[in-house]
């Protein structure tokens, strides 16, 4: 209660800015009903955001910058950051009819399998070989009685709020200037556009990644006697930042190492890539003499090896060739990401905004690091942690996502250096000119974030009608049926995960060979009819609005292509319509008439 009283006391001291933040939050809340997702274009959410919502975000940003300028207390800054997180990461949760993003629904299905069976099935797919996150989600859902889709819906807000404390802890190890730490946190949330914070193992383990690094930087930091780089700053060098607080006792150190081991064990059980990223970061700190727990990287590697050898062996045995073939293939890693740069004109604009936003924050960070160095700061540990993720570039293409993951792993440290451009040392950045510059950059980042983060929203959002159709599909399809969709972009695989087989029109040979200038959709229909005819016991084809949006947005086919196929299927004597609503249709093959019937 004393903490609550202290917060209230701090708020009373900054009543003006607290009032602005609360008004901005209220304006945001009353603006939400005006967001009409059905009118969204290929620019995504930004195309349907009402002006009042922009005003709310703008007011919050101005208020935050004033907080920094007047060096207001922590509680007021905290209020602004929490409001920002809820606005930026909760907007889709609050306006969507059902949870967004097709992969999140698939993850619901994996956790649902564990709820139903109390077991994992390593032979089905990779998720069951690193099931920690899904086991945890199943446990929480069972214990709280909250459904897995509800957990999935709130995951982005929950994860981003969880990131806040370790972020602050990390940044405070490098500075005792609260303005710098909070602006770093602010920039992190304005640039975390890559959307890995959905209901996913990486969203959850990223929190543990931050905490492990926070513990090592806070309690196990050291400054090497000999420096690898002898950089001569323009001014007298400042002493390297010493983490606040007393030196931990041997018992505390042992306890903290045990905590790190427990956190890492949870990460090892939950994700394939994240533990390697942690090992790389910790090893970099150890080799640079910045971490006193020198044996930790080896222990971590042993833990990863033990997991793979005993509990992920089913996956590794079946995929070792693929994993080894991609290892170190730099071109494949880059190509697999740059191949994503295609689609409609508006989508290409979104992709360009993503690239510009990425380059912009990296450029700010570079300038910030240089300015801090010139002013005598040496933040070697954070600089290392900003650079180390780039070592992953040749590790594996990771489904075309490795560059996105690298961006995410480096982001807390990049955001810190971007903030250091404005507040390189305590004495700097007290003028209104700096505050105006922070405001300008924040507004630019906010605009970029709104486009970059929610640029795929036309395909990522699902309607209640689409979900109803998928539920109807599972009701209709007997166990073992083949379920076919135009594209993977629909809310499916969340029920009876192991009981169905799946196929996509976009993966068929006739789709790949299709000349879209003179399309012959009947070729695709014929091929898929043949595939469905061979399937036992039955096969169903589901076509939905979001599939069409995905195919168009990503440039897999011209506008309306999937609906042309749907018309062809509806007109074909081989198919019959078994369900239809405003956003979806389900077809199956006509059963051959029995003789004498």
């Amino acid at each position: 209660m004393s903490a609550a009283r202290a917060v209230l006391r701090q708020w009373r001291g900054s009543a003006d800015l607290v009032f602005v933040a609360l008004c901005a939050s209220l304006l945001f809340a009353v603006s939400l009903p005006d967001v009409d997702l059905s009118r969204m274009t290929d620019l995504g959410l930004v195309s349907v955001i009402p002006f009042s919502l922009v005003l709310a975000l703008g007011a919050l940003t101005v208020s935050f910058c004033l907080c920094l300028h007047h060096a207001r207390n922590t509680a007021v800054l905290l209020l602004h950051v929490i409001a920002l997180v809820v606005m930026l990461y909760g907007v889709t949760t609050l306006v969507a009819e059902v949870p967004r993003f097709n992969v999140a629904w698939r993850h619901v299905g994996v956790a649902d399998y564990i709820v139903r069976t109390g077991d994992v099935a390593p032979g089905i797919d990779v998720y069951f070989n690193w099931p920690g996150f899904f086991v945890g989600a199943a446990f929480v859902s069972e214990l709280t009685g909250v459904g897995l889709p509800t957990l999935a819906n709130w995951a982005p807000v929950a994860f981003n709020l969880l990131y806040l404390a370790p972020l602050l802890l990390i940044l405070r190890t490098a500075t005792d200037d609260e303005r710098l730490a909070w602006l770093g946190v602010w920039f992190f949330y304005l640039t975390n556009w890559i959307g890995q914070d959905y209901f996913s193992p990486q969203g959850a383990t990223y929190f543990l990644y931050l905490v492990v690094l926070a513990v090592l930087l806070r309690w196990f930091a050291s400054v090497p006697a000999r420096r690898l780089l002898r950089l001569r700053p323009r001014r007298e060098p400042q002493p390297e930042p010493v983490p606040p607080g007393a030196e931990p006792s041997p018992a505390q150190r042992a306890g903290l190492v045990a905590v790190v081991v427990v956190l890492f064990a949870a990460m090892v059980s939950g994700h394939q890539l994240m533990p390697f990223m942690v090992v790389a970061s910790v090893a970099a700190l150890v080799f640079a003499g910045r971490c006193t727990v020198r044996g930790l990287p080896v222990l971590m590697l042993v833990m990863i090896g033990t997991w793979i050898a005993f509990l992920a062996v089913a996956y590794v045995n079946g995929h070792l060739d693929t994993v080894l073939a991609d290892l170190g293939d730099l071109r494949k890693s880059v190509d697999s990401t740059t191949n994503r740069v295609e689609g409609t004109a508006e989508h290409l604009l979104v992709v360009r905004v993503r690239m510009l936003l990425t380059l912009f924050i990296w450029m700010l960070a570079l300038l910030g690091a240089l300015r801090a160095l010139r002013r005598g700061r040496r933040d070697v540990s954070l600089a290392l942690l900003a650079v180390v993720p780039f070592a992953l570039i040749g590790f594996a293409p990771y489904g075309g996502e490795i560059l996105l993951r690298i961006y995410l792993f480096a982001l807390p440290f990049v955001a810190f250096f971007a903030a250091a451009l404005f507040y390189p040392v305590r004495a700097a950045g007290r003028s209104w000119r700096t505050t105006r510059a922070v405001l300008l950059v924040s507004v630019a980042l906010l605009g970029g974030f709104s486009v970059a983060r929610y640029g795929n929203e036309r395909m990522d959002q699902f309607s209640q009608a689409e979900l109803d159709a998928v539920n109807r599909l599972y009701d209709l399809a007997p166990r073992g049926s083949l379920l076919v969709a135009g594209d993977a972009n629909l809310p499916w695989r969340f029920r009876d995960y192991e009981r169905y087989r799946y196929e996509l029109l976009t993966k068929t040979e006739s789709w790949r060979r299709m000349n879209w200038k003179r399309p012959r959709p009947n070729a695709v229909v014929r091929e898929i009819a043949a595939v469905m005819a061979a399937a036992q016991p039955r096969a169903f084809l589901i076509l939905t609005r979001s599939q069409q949006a995905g195919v168009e947005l990503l440039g897999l086919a011209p506008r309306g292509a999937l609906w042309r196929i749907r018309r062809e299927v509806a007109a074909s004597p081989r198919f019959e319509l078994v369900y239809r609503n405003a956003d979806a249709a389900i077809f199956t093959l006509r059963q051959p008439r029995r003789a004498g019937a």
Partner: protein
Amino acid sequence: VRRRLPPRWAGVNVALAAAATLLAIAESQTPARPALMLAFVLVSPGLALVRLLRLGDRVAELTLVLALSAALAVLVPSVLLYADLWSPRAACAALLGIVLAATAVETARSQQAVER
């Protein structure tokens, strides 16, 4: 802020863990269940263990409480699952055991300090 969490939190924490475990075992569907269970899973085990470290930094303690609790909410049910003993109620009871054990150690240490 350089203060330790006040000692009464230990009692509140044990009460929260015990109430959550009772609710789980009784399969009660009270409206308070989601909030109570979520508070238990995300806070209780971590709070009991982090108090043993006596770190004296509130943001650091909060960070570790959330992270340790989340990690244990993954690891404890996972151990039961791989041992073919999957049961959310058993996992809940195991977490209660961790809370009780850690609180007992803390209480014993405090008593020793008082006796000295």
